[in-house]
């Protein structure tokens, strides 16, 4: 299961980077979504996957495999919420950019450096 998840994380990172390098702002936003989900999965995965076990200890203490670690889940939850906020803000900026320039093309941005 870990191997599959690791491959999935890799695919998501690849897709995210590919999307980031496109010219369209919408694709850039989709790229950010891919990357943030890949990172969330990575955080979740790095603490180890323990299937079918409760989050809190029932009775026997000391056996670390007897329960699933709740902390990475809490971390991912926080990160997902932050990611949602960022995507909403990016979409708002994209809308604003579209109404200013009438285009979705990041090449419209080119001359900032040399202006």
């Amino acid at each position, binding site marked *: 299961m870990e191997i599959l998840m690791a491959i999935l994380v890799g695919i998501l990172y690849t897709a995210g980077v590919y999307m980031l390098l496109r010219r369209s702002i919408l694709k850039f936003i989709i790229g950010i979504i891919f990357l943030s989900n890949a990172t969330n999965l*990575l*955080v979740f995965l*790095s603490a180890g996957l323990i299937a079918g076990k409760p989050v809190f200890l029932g009775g026997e203490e000391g056996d670390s495999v007897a329960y699933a670690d709740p*902390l990475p889940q809490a*971390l991912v939850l926080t*990160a997902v919420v932050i990611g949602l906020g960022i995507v909403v803000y990016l979409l708002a900026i994209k809308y604003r*950019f579209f109404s200013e*320039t009438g285009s979705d093309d990041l090449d419209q941005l080119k001359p900032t*450096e040399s*202006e």
Partner: protein
Amino acid sequence: MAIELTPILIPMLFMVLHLVIRKYRYIGIMAIAGSTILLASSILILVRVMKTGILTTVAGGWDAPFGISIVIDPMSALFLVISSLIVLAISVYALRFPEGKIYLPKFYFFFFTLIMGVNGAFITGDIFNLYVWFEVMLLSSFVLITLGFSKEQLKGGIKYMAINLIGSLLFLAGIGLFYGKTGTLNMAHLSEILMNDDQSLLINSSAMLFFLAFGIKAAIFPLYFWLPASYHTPDITVSSLFAGILTKVGIYAMIRFFTLFFVQDPLFWNEQLFIVAGFTMVMGGMAASAQYETRKILSYHIISQIGYMVFGLAIFTPLGIAGGIFFTLHNMIAKTNTFLVAGLINRMRGSFDLKEVGGLFKESPLLAVLFMIPALALAGIPPLSGFFAKVILIKAGFENGNYVITVIAILTGLLTLYSMIKIWNEAFLKSQPEAYKVKREKQAYTLGFADLFPAVLLATVTVLMGVFASDVFELTMKAAEYLMHPEIYIESVMGR
């Protein structure tokens, strides 16, 4: 218990107040009151930390390492005081925010959110919590940089967002891997575990992710391109705030992480930090001298100065780190001040382009003095603060035997001097170019209290930091000694 949380709670309170009270007459007074209270509480914290050592508390009543620790050591306290000083200056300066009635309430709201994020990052003792404060800071900076929605700002803002989002995702990935290896998020606990562990190869992979993430925030050599592409687009009030505080949070996090965690493989890291520091100094300095727009000169110059801060960390002796912290504190003040003066030049002449301005020395000698103080401090002319910061760094570099990089640091000082002299000659000494006189007549503007007070305040602090350099040095030395002995940090957090 209470005082450790004030750096977060005060901005939060004023953030809410700005949401509720929207009368244009009150918001400015409210913001200035808020930042004054913040400054007072930061000074109180600094005094207490210097007297009794590290202050700690835990949020939610869970003991460390389970609860989120708030830890204020001398370095955090020094950063808190200096950033609150900048906050006070900016909150006054912002009264002249363009189209104030529309944007000022929003500006102050996100201003306080940003401060909350910055202060939270300075005082937290938990790496995931640090990530959350970074996000608070980033999101409000996104809003501030695009406030006004001009085409130019959208251009700069999207570049700024893209690279900074990647930085925080790398940071999060680093935290995940770090947690997977050690099973804890508390900084003191992590440091304790890593001290008794020799798997440096595994740790270096997450250390590299952290290095990249903080490097993007701090704008070090191969990762700095977002900064000059975006810092000149928003209103100058926002630029000065960012220039003074944001990149330095990256430096703070880097110093914290590389003194507390990644100390097992010092050869690898120090070499790398030296190379990065050298390139950052030189590239930033050279790019700054090629520019003709005040904000761009100053933006590239931020990068050059970041190099010195990384240099201080890379020397990795108490003197070197003390020099790095001294330099960062001096730079936060002086850099903000040069941006503020650039804004004043723009208000008087209607342009940031050095080719279009001139003759300001005759018209406003006070402004000339206000520019000269931070500019000479940045160039390192005695008896201002920058001179002592550089002397400490250079002494530490030679003592440690890092001759090449130290010589580079000395020579980069000349590049700084060159770009500062360029602004001085063009804006103040030469007479106003004929072709742009018309623009000037239209823009007749006299500098008022809100324009001058922030610059005077920061210039005074720059001079005082030079006059009382030995006292400031003692404070930074104490901070460096705490950083070089993580045991003290661990003991006071874990309560042993």
